[in-house]
């Protein structure tokens, strides 16, 4: 169980629903570990700034996370979390391991360009 303040994706069906019903989606697939927790924290803090993006997490050890772990975009990834950015249901960016707030913000701004709430 991921005890973050993000919305959780518990199943492949949840995942499909999230990416099909929302234009801009970020999913962080990880564990409650040192490389993952900072990324959840960054996402939690950016939720208020990037209101046009839906933020979710998904537990890496949940078998249903195969929808993330088997993406072609994560081939070669050997560090959690796997963070996937979807636009209109398609993967537009994927990162492996810990990211800084600036790195996440840069991706969100570039891939989900829209007016950002100051």
């Amino acid at each position, binding site marked *: 169980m991921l*005890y973050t303040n993000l919305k959780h994706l518990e199943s492949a069906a949840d995942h499909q629903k999230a990416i099909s019903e929302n234009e801009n989606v970020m999913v962080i697939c990880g*564990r*409650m*570990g*040192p*490389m*993952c*927790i*900072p990324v959840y*924290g*960054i996402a939690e*803090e*950016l939720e208020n700034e990037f209101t046009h993006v839906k933020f979710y997490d998904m537990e890496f050890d949940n078998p249903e996370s195969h929808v993330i772990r088997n993406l072609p975009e994560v*081939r*070669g*990834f*050997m*560090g*959690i979390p796997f963070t996937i950015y979807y636009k209109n249901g398609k993967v537009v960016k994927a*990162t*492996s*391991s*810990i990211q800084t*707030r600036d790195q996440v913000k840069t991706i969100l701004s570039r891939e989900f360009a829209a007016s950002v709430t*100051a």
Partner: protein
Amino acid sequence: METKRHYDAIVIGAGPAGLTAGIYLSRAKLKTLILNEGITGGQLILTHEIANYPGVENISGYQLSNIMMKQAKTFGCEIRSSIDILDMELQKKVKTITLSDQTEYTADSVILTPGGRSRTLNVPGEDQFRGRGVSYCATCDGDFFTGKEIVVIGGGNSALEESVSLTMYASKVTIVHQFDHFQAFEHAVEEAQANPKIHFIMESVITGFYGNESIESVGIKNLRSGRTTNFKTHGVFVFIGYLPNTEFIRDKVELNNRGEIVVKHDMSTNIEGVYAAGDSIAKHFRQITTAVGDGTIAALAASSYVHGLKAKQKHLITT
């Protein structure tokens, strides 16, 4: 946006030292603000399980930092996270902190608790292969290397202890260390040396990370011979210590040659009204408990300083 607000004390950083300072200052009825560039909890949230925090049998760093944060807020402490500090004026009696969004905060006292971060190697390929074979966390990524040969870089306790834990997954672990001896405790060295899966390359440094989709090899330079060889590996774990997050105060307070803030016994710096605590100060032991202790001392000293200022002002008004 341009606003200006005055506080009795501003704490820079929200790790265990900063949150503790926030708890003590706000409980002393001082108007307190914590400004934090990173995630609330600092390095504390990176600790998976804490078993040696007195009074708490077992807790995750994430949970402990959440409790500390709530405790500070309960006493009235304000916390602003994910901010960018543009400038600080600490020399004057009234300290000024300006954020990148032009918000300006002033305070009678400032406590610096910026903490530290994992040191990186800064050699070619490190960024490119981070998460693609280069890792800084054995418990997070160890299982990606089941049955594979990996390299661990470092010679301290973390490097030696994590090498042993990585042998649960990897078929072979090669420790690369720049000196001819380890800095780790003797028991950690003995345990690693007794493990048949662990091999050692001493007096050597990494010169680069190479591969395509993921890492395939590293360059290892022998410091005695000067010869560099290409060493095949599936993964590299880096455990080479911490760096203090003090670049932003380099010209503001006295730092030592390692970039750590120099403090006196009451956590005061060379600037009047400015204190420091936690992993960023010059000290030998860095634990959550020591950060909490430093934060307490800094807050009590700052509290005394601010109350002294208030008493002087009151005296001037009445005479």
